[in-house]
């Protein structure tokens, strides 16, 4: 649509492509920032209500501008670099964590045709880009020259790399059903039945692993306020800290969006416009994540890793096996042959 409009103005192809990319980029950025800022407020409000507190209620009606006020405050803060820090790594880490957090949105289909780059390896791209967050956290933990930071970073890396495997394997079940890694194909394949019904185990594994991947409670060992201050983020101040914080919520949004795309039928739904369906489903997922975070206590690192390697990983392999057998049996029944 946009392409046709731009070409009708007589622009050359490269200009059309560039403008389209810029429009998508701006759209994604606006969506992500507004949502991330709202999510911070939502999280504080929900946690407050769950703990019978009021939460932020001073700035704006029901405290809705609290995050904006926080952002402005952080913008006006001093930028402290510890004397013994590894300076370059320290400077680069917040940027390294933020770039993949935005990049993954390229393959999220917000509606029919509303996708920045419909890559034919979409899901794989998401996993590849999202996994680089680990590096940024390790950089942040290392650079501050703070023992708690390093400890937090080490734990987080162990956690994130471990949980990445069940995450990847759980998505594999969906990929087997669709036969494509394109996110638009995956959504289209769920026209009749959502994959959460065909792959309930995979959804459960995805949900647990994604919680661990974005370092939310009960897997928030990265921060673990009571024992290691704020983990890798301890030494960061001002906007550098804000970037870590924002990327955390951006990641939450992106894993929820991917869950909706893979398991909950993407933007499909009756009556309402597709993009609205998409946002409603994403928020249901996010509320689920928040509910879990404020309900369960943080678990210990050895339990965390053992749960992953000794339960989730075998379970996800069994799920792949079951899916494979299921598909073959279904094919055999439908066609009367292998």
């Amino acid at each position: 649509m946009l392409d046709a409009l731009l070409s009708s103005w007589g622009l050359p192809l490269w200009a059309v492509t560039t403008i389209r990319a810029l429009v998508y980029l701006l759209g994604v950025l606006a969506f992500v920032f507004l949502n991330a800022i709202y999510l911070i407020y939502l999280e504080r409000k929900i946690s407050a209500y769950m703990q019978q507190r009021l939460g932020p209620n001073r700035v704006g009606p029901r405290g809705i501008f609290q995050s904006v006020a926080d952002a402005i405050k952080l913008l006006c803060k001093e930028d402290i670099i510890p004397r013994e820090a590894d300076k370059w790594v320290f400077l680069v880490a917040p940027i390294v964590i933020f770039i993949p957090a935005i990049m993954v949105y390229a393959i999220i289909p917000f509606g029919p045709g509303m996708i920045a780059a419909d890559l034919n390896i979409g899901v794989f791209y998401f996993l590849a880009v999202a996994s680089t967050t680990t590096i940024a956290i390790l950089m942040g933990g290392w650079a501050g020259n703070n023992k708690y930071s390093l400890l937090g970073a080490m734990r987080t890396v162990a956690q994130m790399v471990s949980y990445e495997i069940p995450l990847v394997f759980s998505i594999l079940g969906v990929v087997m059903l669709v036969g494509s890694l394109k996110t638009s194909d995956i959504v289209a394949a769920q026209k009749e039945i959502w994959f959460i019904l065909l792959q309930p185990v995979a959804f459960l594994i995805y949900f647990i692993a994604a919680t661990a991947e974005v370092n939310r409670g009960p897997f928030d060992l990265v921060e673990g306020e009571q024992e290691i201050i704020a983990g890798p983020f301890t030494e960061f101040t001002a906007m550098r800290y804000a970037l870590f914080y924002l990327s955390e919520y951006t990641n939450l949004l992106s894993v929820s969006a991917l869950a909706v795309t893979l398991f909950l039928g993407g933007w499909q739904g009756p009556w309402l416009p597709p993009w609205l369906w998409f946002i409603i489903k994403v928020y249901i997922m996010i509320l689920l994540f928040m509910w879990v975070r404020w309900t369960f206590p943080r678990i210990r690192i050895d339990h965390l890793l053992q749960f992953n390697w000794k339960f989730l990983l075998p379970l996800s392999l069994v799920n792949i096996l079951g899916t494979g057998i299921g598909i073959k049996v279904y094919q055999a029944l439908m066609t009367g042959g292998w």
Partner: protein
Amino acid sequence: MAWAALAVNWLLRPKRPQVGDQRETYECGLKTQGPTWVQFRIGYFLYALIFLLFDVETIFLYPWAVKFQVLGLFAFIEMLIFIGILILGLWYAWKEGGLEWL
């Protein structure tokens, strides 16, 4: 985008010299003791190794999963053997205590 945010921060923030303990490492008010960048325990390395193993496996599994419905039963059984070998590895690591948090 990240650069822009940092640039705004640079414009707005107070620019006075940071004195005294302000630039010290923050450890609950105590002076930090000894070097931070020490050798870490081997446990993390073991997990990293197993992770690497399975991460490579996923790279093989994805193309297989994409073409799964087209390929015949033979490919399925072949992949079963492949996964089986990896499970054997996992079982060995499990038996040897590689998955325990030391």
